[in-house]
Each structure stands twice: as C-alpha cells, then as structure tokens.
C-alpha cells in the first residue's frame, strides 16, 4: 500500500494574531514509517499536528495524504485517515462512559450497531482495557485514560496515527507499556514529544523543528546522538545516551 504517504510541501501558517508558527515546512512520510517530531517549546510541533487533519489550514503550501490534498472539502476524508491522540486525555475523552467515547467515532462514520460494538471491543482489546468499558472517564487513572484515548482513535481504524506528547503525565511503568503498545501498531506514526527516549525507542526516523521549519530530518539514532546540535535546539541527549559519571 503506497497511498498513505503524508507530504507537507512548503507549508506556511500564521495565527490570526500574526504569529508565524510554520515558515515553510517540507517533509514526506511513507507508509508504515514511525516518525518522531521534536523541537523546543513553541517550535511549532502542535501546530504541525493540527494540520494533519485539517483543524488548521495552511496559509500557503499544501498538505497531502496519498492523492488527497487538504482543502475545506476534503477535511472529513482527512479525519477518517488520520487519527490524532491528544496530549491531555481529558480533552479527548468527552463522553460520559468509556464505551460511549470509543463508539463515538464509529457511530459518526454511520456504522450499524453490531459493527460499532465489534469495533469498540477490538479497539479496547488492543489496549487491554476491555474491563473499563462501563466506567466514566473521571474514575480512571491517567494511564488508563491515555490507553482509552488511544482506543478511541484506533476504533476509527485510521491509516495514520498522530500523537501529541503521548507519554506526558504517565508513571514510568505506564509509559513503558505505552511504548510497547506503540511498537505493535503497524500504522504510519507521527509522534510529537519531548520524551526523546520514547522517540528513540519507537521511531526510526526523527524530524527536528526549529523556528517553524524543519532543521533536521534523518535516522533517530543519528540525530539524537548529536549533542551539540540537540543543545542548539533546546534539547539534550536522550537519557539512554547520557553516561552517568
């Protein structure tokens, strides 16, 4: 399947208040690739992700997935293809029970009851959270919330999974199980994070954003071991590369 290629061509974006968030972003992600997006606070990572499913529209330049170019008309198609997992699960889990939340996407796709139930069961099974389905989200722990948030996106069966800081607020063990979970997904993945060890573990490729443009793009192991370059971009060596003296 070669049609899940994500391509940003010379994408500029300016917020209504005049802030230039993206200044000519170019990259191309092929099918099945895992790509980490890193950069300093305010470098434009979240803005970039919000272009992935048409929540924000480029001021100029194009975003394409396969043969589909992002416009006002193709927004809905984009949202079917790209599943976005948010940094804060409380923003993502807006329905009163876990079941309803995971079912929200499939129901909006107009599926019938039996297939919705099947999708929900599959998605929750994937993140080992089947027993949570009748619980309201505010009775869940942060780790459970983030698992359910992923399930709610997986239930739409997207081709591409985009995540914003998936491991924020997780304890080390939940973080570890999230990492092993992410490794089992065969989707194209785009993960924006400051957790460089997570990127190193999950993504073979890494894009560094600085000042609204791509400043580096290459194999994670290579980029994330270049100490001088990382420090230039407000980053540092992943902990696993830092020798303890």
């Amino acid at each position, binding site marked *: 399947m070669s049609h899940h290629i994500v391509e940003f061509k010379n994408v500029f974006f300016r917020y209504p208040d005049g802030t230039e968030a993206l200044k000519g972003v170019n990259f191309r992600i092929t099918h099945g690739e895992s790509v980490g997006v890193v950069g300093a606070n305010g470098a434009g990572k979240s803005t970039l992700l919000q272009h992935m499913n048409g929540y924000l529209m480029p001021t100029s330049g194009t975003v394409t997935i396969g043969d589909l170019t992002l416009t006002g008309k193709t927004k809905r198609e984009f949202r079917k293809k790209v*599943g976005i997992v948010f940094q804060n699960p409380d923003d993502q889990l*807006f329905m009163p029970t876990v079941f309803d939340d995971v079912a929200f996407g499939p129901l909006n796709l107009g599926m019938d009851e039996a297939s919705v139930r099947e999708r929900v069961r599959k998605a929750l099974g994937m993140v080992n959270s089947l027993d949570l389905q009748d619980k309201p989200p505010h009775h869940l722990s942060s780790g459970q919330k983030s698992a359910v948030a992923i399930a709610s996106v997986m239930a739409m069966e997207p081709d591409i999974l985009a995540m914003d800081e998936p491991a924020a607020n997780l304890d080390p063990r939940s973080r570890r199980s999230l990492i092993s979970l992410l490794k089992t997904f065969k989707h194209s993945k785009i993960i924006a994070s400051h957790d460089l060890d997570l990127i190193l573990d999950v993504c073979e490729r890494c894009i560094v954003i600085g000042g609204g443009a791509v400043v580096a793009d290459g194999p994670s192991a290579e980029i994330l071991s270049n100490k001088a370059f990382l420090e230039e971009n407000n980053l540092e060596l992943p902990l696993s590369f830092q020798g303890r003296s």
Partner: protein
Amino acid sequence: MTFDTLYFDIGRMDRLSYRETFVHRLDPRAKVIATILFLFTVISFPKYEIVALAPFFLYPVLLLTVGEIPVRFIIKKMIVVSPFAVFIGIFNPILDTRTAAVIFGVSLSAGWISFLSILLKFALTISAALLLIATTSFPGVCHALRRLGFPALFVSQLLFLYRYLFVLMEEAMRIVRAREMRSFGSRGTGMKVFVRLIGILFLRTMDRAERIYYAMLSRGFHGDIPSLKRSRIAFRDLAFMAITIAFLAVFRFLPITEGIGRVA
C-alpha cells in the same frame, strides 16, 4: 465547607450511583418516569394539605432502603438546599393568620399549616430527585431522557456538564490551592483576587472547550451526538412502574390516611 470536601461529596454521590442493587438495576427510563410522576403528584396537593402527604414518604424510604443509600448522606444534602424552601414559606404564618385549628388550647394559624405543607413537599420532592441521581448513573438518566423524547441538544449539554464537572472542579481546586499556599493570612483571599481567579478559570475553560471541540471534529462529529441503545424494558421495570403508579393514584385520590384515623 471547603472546596475540597464539596468536591469529594459530589464524587461520593456519583460513586453511589454505580452500585449494584435492585433499584440500581432498574431501567433508567422507568425510574425517570416514576420520579416525574411522583413529583407531580406531590405538588398537585392543595396548599393546606399535611396529613395526606405523610404516606408519600414511603416511596423515598423504600428506595433508600432497597438501594442501600446512606440516609444521613441524603438528609445532609437536603439540609444544604433547604433555605430555599424555608424562605418561600417563612412569611406564610405572618401573612395568613386565620385560625385553622386549636390544639391543646394553642390556636394554629393557617399560615403555619401551609408553611409545614411546603416543607413536607420540599422534603418529598428533593429526596425523590436525589435518590434518582444516587441510584441511577448520570449517563443513564441522560439516555433515558433522550429516549423519552427530550431534545438532543439539551441532553448533550447535560452529558457534557456531567463529564466536565469533575475536570472543572479539579481545575478550580488547583487554582484555589495555589492561592492558599501563597496567601498568608487574609491577604490574597479578598474579593479582588477572587474575581480574577474566576476570570482565569473562565479563560482556561474556553481553551479547553476549543480543544474538546477539536477532538470531536477529529472523530467525525457533525452536529449530533450519536448513541447506542443500551437497555431494554424488562418485566421488573414494568412492575416497578405499575406499582408506583398504583401507589401514587391510591394515596392521591382516596382519603386513606383519614380512613385509618377514623378506624383507629
């Protein structure tokens, strides 16, 4: 009562509704209809009625017992809202001074009787409403309302209210704690700061609303919140409704209490 205890109190109410008893298992629709009928029956009594209201306490007491809801918890909640009822009725004894009855030589004015009647009705209606919430999960109530024909917009507002009540309260709790930690003594706790805190909370809520909307759009939202049928009316639900309706009708239209009084 501090903000924290208030927060955990609501949480407790919510947890009660996820228990498993006969009352909890009844279909939410049956309970919603029964409660609405109960409320209308109680408020349909004339303003000087006291005696005929007494048997209606059977309904909340039964729900309370079978649903294993702690009595003190419900009574506490009722006391919290009681000022409303008290202020509605407090002037009746002053304005309505006709003598209605003489008990042991003390004349009782009609105002006192109507005041007492208001309090009784208040106790009955509030306890019934509280028990509905304490024995039915809130999403259950919402789905019941939706399927009974309430407008979709109204029901989704209720669902969001429930979902984000806890998130918002935690947000407020964090702000309040942060203030307390740095306001030594009374400085920083005044009205001026309070107003600003409310402002901050409002802004944060707006931001959150936008992120939630984004999340909804990402999952194909286009104006209506869909939901699946989750429950069927079973025999016990029909039985529960039939008994409730019979109970309400008998005690509303037949002078049972008076009858018992005469026989005794």
